[in-house]
């Protein structure tokens, strides 16, 4: 087990190192200079040179890459070229919006998907199943920003139950914060819920065909009792895997939703940073997201190995 864990850890570190290099190169290769962007079309050449020196852009790329990587190892992500505030602080601020939003959306999608999936599996082939599957088909097909715009139209513009966007900050109270995140969370959750419902349903149906389910029925449990007592627990494994994947997606993939609801989250930060060629912010945020995804995968790998001994010997 320890050997396996060490192997996975080594591959994690290697992936991170390669990722940092790729991210740096891709971002640096894209044309556009942050200093010229800041100073606009009337700036004199000597002014741009002065700003480049002030930002440390006059150093070579190797030197900048090394100082970025070594800084990150110590938790220092550098200073934003445009905002001139520490990148770590900016990311932390934005995470306070993006993380709760992702958790909120995930909670909603789970709350919708579990009952819907169980219901559909229990009514396999009947009207209820058809209806749920039809709805999920729609949920998977329709992009979340369209849902977002519809939600704004109905609940913000017509009914006035919610604001059209923005975030008052947690200092305004947890209630106000959650209220502001509700529409974005629903918009993010619906497509995810549709996927999760389908996974839940098919996982349950797979389990229903297993031998131990037949034994449970033979012992005298009704179909429903067998589903609840034995089916659900075993079906959770693939479902939890999907939830894990969805969480990283929600954290990184809320860019469009954050634009639609003008939320000061991580996605919006990346968006602004890319157009301003705030290279160091782009690099650091992308690196952080890569780190999060790779770490989650690492933990999931370990969890699998704990659950399923076959994996330990195979790798």
């Amino acid at each position, binding site marked *: 087990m320890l050997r396996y864990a060490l192997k996975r850890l080594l591959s994690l570190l290697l992936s991170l190192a390669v990722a940092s290099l790729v991210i740096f190169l891709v971002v640096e290769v*894209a*044309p*556009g*200079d*942050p200093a*010229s*962007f*800041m*100073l*606009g*079309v*009337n*700036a*004199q050449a*000597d*002014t741009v040179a*002065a*700003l480049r*020196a*002030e930002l440390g852009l006059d150093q070579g790329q190797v030197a900048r890459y090394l100082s970025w990587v070594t800084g990150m190892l110590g938790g220092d992500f550098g200073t934003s070229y*445009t*905002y*001139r*505030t520490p990148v770590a602080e*900016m990311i932390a*601020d*934005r995470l306070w919006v993006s993380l709760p939003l992702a958790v909120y959306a995930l909670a909603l999608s789970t709350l919708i998907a579990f009952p819907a999936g169980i219901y559909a599996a229990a009514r396999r082939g009947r009207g209820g199943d058809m209806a749920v599957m039809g709805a999920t088909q729609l949920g998977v097909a329709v992009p979340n920003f369209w849902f977002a*715009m519809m939600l*704004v*139209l109905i609940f*913000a*513009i017509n009914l*006035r139950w919610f*604001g*059209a*966007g*923005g*975030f008052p*900050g947690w200092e305004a109270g947890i209630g106000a914060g959650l209220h502001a995140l509700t529409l974005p969370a629903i918009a993010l959750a619906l497509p995810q819920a549709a996927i999760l419902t389908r996974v839940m349903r098919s996982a349950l149906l797979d389990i229903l065909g297993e031998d131990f389910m037949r034994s449970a029925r033979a012992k005298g449990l009704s179909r429903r009792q067998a589903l609840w007592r034995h089916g659900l627990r075993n079906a959770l494994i693939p479902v939890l895997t999907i939830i894990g994947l969805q969480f990283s997606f929600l954290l990184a993939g809320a860019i469009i939703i954050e*634009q*639609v*609801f*003008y*939320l*000061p*989250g991580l996605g*919006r*930060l990346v*968006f*602004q940073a*890319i*157009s*301003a*060629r705030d290279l160091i912010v782009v690099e650091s945020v992308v690196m952080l997201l890569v780190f999060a995804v790779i770490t989650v995968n690492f933990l999931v790998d370990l969890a699998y190995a704990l659950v399923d001994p076959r994996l330990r010997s195979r790798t």
Partner: protein
Amino acid sequence: MALRSLVLAAGSAIALMAGGAWAKDSVTIAMQLEPPHLDPTSAAAQAIDSVVYSNIFEGLTRFQGDGSVVPGLAESWEISGDGTVYTFRLREGVTFHDGSSFDAEDVKFSLDRARAEDSTNAQKALFAGITAVDVVDPQTVRITLDAPNGALLFNLAWGDAVIVAPESIGSIKTNPIGTGAYKFQNWVQGDRIALTRNENYWGEPPALEKATFKFISDPTAAFAALMAEDIDAFDNFPAPENLPQFEADPRFQVLVGSTEGETILAINNKQPPFDDLRVRQAVTHAIDRQAIIDGAMFGYGTPIGSHFAPHHPAYKDLTANSAHDPEKARALLAEAGLPDGFETTLHLPPPSYARRGGEIVAAQLAAVGIKAEIINVEWAQWLETVFRGKTFGLSIVSHTEPMDIGIYARPDYYFQYDNPAFQALMTRLEASSDPASRTTLLQEAQAMIAADYVNGYLFQLAKLGVAKAGLEGLWENAPTAAIDLSALRWAE
């Protein structure tokens, strides 16, 4: 009876609440872009000026909503006979927001900082002619120029020339301390900037106590935020197609004004075949301005025939010089040895005037045989390839700096117009401070670049503001990027 009084009480409570809403003393104004930081003297971003200009920071002179330049922190000035020495008398009793007093030392510090060797001022050229800034006494500053400059008072009104204090310069980017009518309160990055009224303001105190700027970049979100009344006004509303809806809604007012943005079809004058005047002329005759204004800007915008703002007193209408005439365009191309037209590139930055306008321009050029390949670029990329690299054929850009016809005197400027006669004209203009002769020179300059067909001149960008019906005192035009809060108030 009890029920009736309850209903009455509820009714009056609602009336009171409604009354309270009208008598509010705060305003929330949205804009599309967020400022990168809050120092107007070290970046070109207009969003900085929108938030801080004359609200937080003031200069010796200032722009008013109609574009005129009036005294700001300088109460009055004298100009020496030869036009090279300006003596400014500063206002008394002015303090910075941190309580320190404003005097001539602050002016000297600010102007010397802007023109220093390691200055990062985006408009450093504004200060190029200044040879010395001297403190005569705490209330008097003397600026000496190497040659007369008729535009000095105008230049000093720019956001890049505001007065900052040496004590607070270190943290100016995140905690700006100026002399203006509003104090910086806080900034939730990515979301909003809050200002509060400066109770010690030297001038007339503003009516509203609090002002919040919110940043909404997505046009659909901007529309929703106004419709849901989350915000009170949107400065430069990004979706002109939605304006009729706001015009029809009694809850809103639509303010259509003009900006300093000359939107041009920039031509690379040094790149063949554009080095041939006839080819450039053909390009301009191929263009139907009104079709672009209608198609890309939904009718908002004024056609221009040269690089000059139509609302300026010295404006000369030269649109007839490059009127839409595809036949003439084809004939000119044939004359230039290109009867079958040619291929070129059309670089389009992100704003909708460029992206939407570019599609129409490309179609119009194709009609006379010029095949322009559309290349969509981001601003940073545009600056690198078009502006600095000069590797482009055509591009669409709005030049938003006020009174910037002087860029045609810079042969290394990205459209690469090199005409000694024009450069001499600009030198004469700089030296002239007599309004009548300045007008003549400016008109001569407009005519010269129009006759040389340096660029295709499309239209003056409109300023499209949307606000709640009761909000008064907003600038209709944008002589400079600014959201001047000082005159804002809610109608009773």
